[in-house]
């Protein structure tokens, strides 16, 4: 076949030799960025995709803004906040902000948006983002109060995260479908065109409010292109069809970095990789119920080797079941260092001198999972891989079919241990350890308001998790970004690229 396609293509080339310039790049003041997945709904409350979060930060504003560097809360649509008591949070709102459609921002918008999404009838995708809100009251035109349904220490992180504010009259009229087709917000960029699963085009909001913690947008146009295939996206980047890609494979990034027109930068994110182990024995593999076997597994896996050789620079090995910078996280736990000989000895002590057979589940990073399998084989544990899409993998976990689960967790970018450790160890459906003591400690931590007490509870829980080797916390993920050399872009730890802060050099 190649015999024939080559001359044909060559002939066609003679005709088509002039290539239309791609609409990307500095010359067009258009930043084209590629994302892998498409979005079911642009309305931020009706998708739970990473690209949805990214777009939401550009189209809308929140009451507060979390600084990507130090994670402090800065005034955004609210100029100040105050805890009236454990269950009441009051905000003073900013005056003089307008939405993209010209409506001016006031307490009504906050009240309508948050009351709408927190009511069970709204059927938002993630109930946990809103179920801590009982209701929202308007005190005056520029003051609102959020009444909480339960003590919720992480509330501010949610206010600054997955809770953008919509224009009340417009949203009441068009609802989530209308918001998807034609999104309206106060944010630094406004949507000018969108084609589902293909592209979303945005333009700078010239009337963006002056004191925004996001700063003023500098690049004229943004275009998000959905390119499902990573390598196609790389090819587009190399040939100037797109300006920015992320989550680049480490080896590829190294090679891309050597191309003259591209920059590659890396940055640690809040995402951690871990392997949970079926200590409760629901999957029927007896060996893993034995603490010595779990410790042997922990020592058999060469986490440092994986971080050094297979992962982008900037990630590191972790020992506790949380992201090190998260509130409540501590590194003061039992550490298992790579020691295959000791692992073999522990296996022998536990009565498995010749190892055993086991299945590892994974839903992403097939190469890392393969490396883990290789390490386990080296100490005699014959592991094979069950690689499934996220939903199927999660289904297996929930049904108790999983013995070893290599997985990752991004904590929804919430900077609090309650978004990770509590998610996996409070005897929920994804808790493989099912340790009642750990669960009780975490529950106390999640519902106390005093920060010091919370830290103490979490520290105890994390120590128990590590000494029992329920989890093998593995590493933090560093993401690699590759982009056009003309672009000035800074990555951030919360996995949310901020193009409103980017500019052309």
């Amino acid at each position, binding site marked *: 076949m190649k015999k024939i396609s080559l001359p044909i293509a060559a002939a066609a080339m003679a005709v088509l030799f002039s290539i239309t310039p791609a609409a990307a790049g500095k010359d067009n003041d258009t930043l084209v960025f590629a994302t892998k997945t498409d979005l079911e709904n642009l309305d931020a409350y009706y998708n739970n995709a990473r690209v949805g979060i990214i777009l939401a930060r550009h189209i809308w504003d929140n009451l507060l803004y979390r600084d990507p560097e130090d994670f402090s809360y800065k005034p955004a649509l609210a100029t100040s906040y105050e805890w009236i008591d454990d269950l009441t949070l009051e905000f003073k709102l900013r005056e003089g902000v307008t939405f993209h459609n010209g409506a001016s921002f006031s307490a009504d918008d906050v009240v309508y948006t948050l009351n709408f999404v927190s009511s069970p009838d709204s059927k938002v995708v993630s109930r946990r983002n809103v179920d801590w809100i009982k209701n929202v009251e308007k005190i005056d035109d520029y003051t609102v109060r959020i009444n909480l349904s339960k003590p919720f220490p992480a509330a501010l992180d949610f206010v600054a995260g997955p809770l953008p504010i919509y224009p009340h009259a417009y949203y009441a009229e068009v609802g989530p479908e209308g918001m998807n087709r034609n999104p309206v917000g106060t944010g630094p960029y406004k949507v000018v065109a969108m084609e589902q699963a293909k592209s979303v085009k945005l333009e700078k909001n010239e009337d963006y409010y002056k004191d925004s913690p996001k700063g003023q947008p500098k690049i004229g146009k943004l275009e998000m292109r959905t390119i499902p295939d990573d390598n196609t996206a*790389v090819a587009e980047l*190399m040939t100037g069809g797109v300006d920015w890609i992320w989550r680049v494979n480490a080896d590829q990034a190294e090679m891309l970095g050597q191309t003259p027109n591209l920059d590659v930068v890396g940055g640690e994110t809040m995402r951690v990789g871990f392997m949970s182990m079926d200590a409760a024995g629901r999957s029927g593999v007896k060996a893993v119920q034995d603490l010595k076997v779990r410790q042997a597994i922990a020592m058999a896996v060469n986490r440092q*080797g994986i971080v050094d050789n297979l992962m982008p620079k900037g990630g590191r090995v972790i020992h506790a079941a949380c992201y090190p910078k998260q509130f409540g996280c501590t590194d003061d736990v039992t550490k298992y260092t790579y020691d295959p000989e000791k692992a073999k000895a522990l296996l022998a002590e536990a009565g498995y001198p010749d190892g055993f057979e086991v299945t590892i589940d994974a839903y992403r990073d097939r190469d890392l999972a393969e*490396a883990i399998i290789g390490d386990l084989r080296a100490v005699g544990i014959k592991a094979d891989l*069950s690689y499934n899409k996220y939903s199927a993998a999660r289904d297996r976990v929930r049904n108790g079919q999983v013995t070893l689960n290599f997985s990752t967790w991004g904590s929804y970018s919430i900077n609090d241990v309650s978004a990770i450790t509590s998610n996996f160890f409070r005897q929920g459906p994804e808790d493989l350890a099912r340790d009642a003591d750990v669960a009780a400690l975490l529950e106390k931590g999640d519902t106390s308001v005093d920060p010091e007490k919370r830290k103490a509870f979490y520290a105890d829980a994390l120590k128990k998790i590590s000494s029992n080797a329920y989890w093998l916390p593995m590493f933090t993920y560093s993401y690699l970004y590759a982009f056009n050399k003309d672009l000035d872009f800074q990555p951030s730890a919360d996995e949310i690229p901020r193009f409103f802060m980017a500019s052309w050099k």
Partner: protein
Amino acid sequence: MSDTVENHLQTAPDEIAAVPVARLSPKQQLIARMRGHFGFKVGLIVLVTFTLVAILAPWIAPHDPYAQDLANRLVQPVWSEKGSWAHILGTDSLGRDYLSRLIYGAQISLVIGFSAMLISGLIGTVMGITAGYFGGRVDMVISFIILNRLSMPVVLVALAVVSLFGSSLIIVILVLGFLLWDRFAVVLRSATMQVRAIEYVAAAEVLGSPVRKILFRDILPNVSNHLLVVASIEMAHAILLEASLSFLGLGVQPPLPSWGLMVSEARPFMFFMPWLITIPGTAIFIVVLAINLLGDGLRDVTAPEGRN
């Protein structure tokens, strides 16, 4: 059954000439024709070589295909400046010897191709011969089943089933086996119809031979040339489909060295280390080519009138 479908499956992608079934020629004549047929010889030699490689893999593979060595990852093949004879085709991203994985990969492709072909061949042959011999209502029912099977897009159904039931070597074989029987059924149905019309079969019927005997003794030997040709097409088809499924991440699972999986795993390197996708891709290409050549050759040799 739809004429269009029947017409299509009988002829494409490999035109199986609907020639009148020739009585098997004397053996020597057949062997002579095989010897004289270039494509047949090449296909046979390549396929035998690959099969030997697959069987002898544990003895000829220079390294353990699963042994990873992160310090020696992405070693270049011997023909490049940085290559060495220690790893003739270099190593992959986990430092596993590429040649050894390629050799073990032959096992997977051939096992899948052969087993899927056997399953589908069994299903399709039983259906086709039954429909062709009994005709009437039986034929109607079987034709209806075939039409149903044909109207379902193979790739989509295979993907869906594998993603629902998890993917493993066995599941891939079963899915392909149960999807690829249509051509067997269609071709053998009409071949059987033709054979049945031949006088001595009719004579056997009149003489009261048991049906089983007629099917096995009179019909099957006379349609076996069609059977072999379709078998070669479907074996090649199964190997290509397995590679596609594995490529899409829904086929054979790591660390098994399937060629489709190897292409898939090598993709991040395609722009800078193109040999990593070229080598396993070429392996698929060669083995499928050999099987197709063999099939074409079989058709020409057993039914020389098919090709003027």
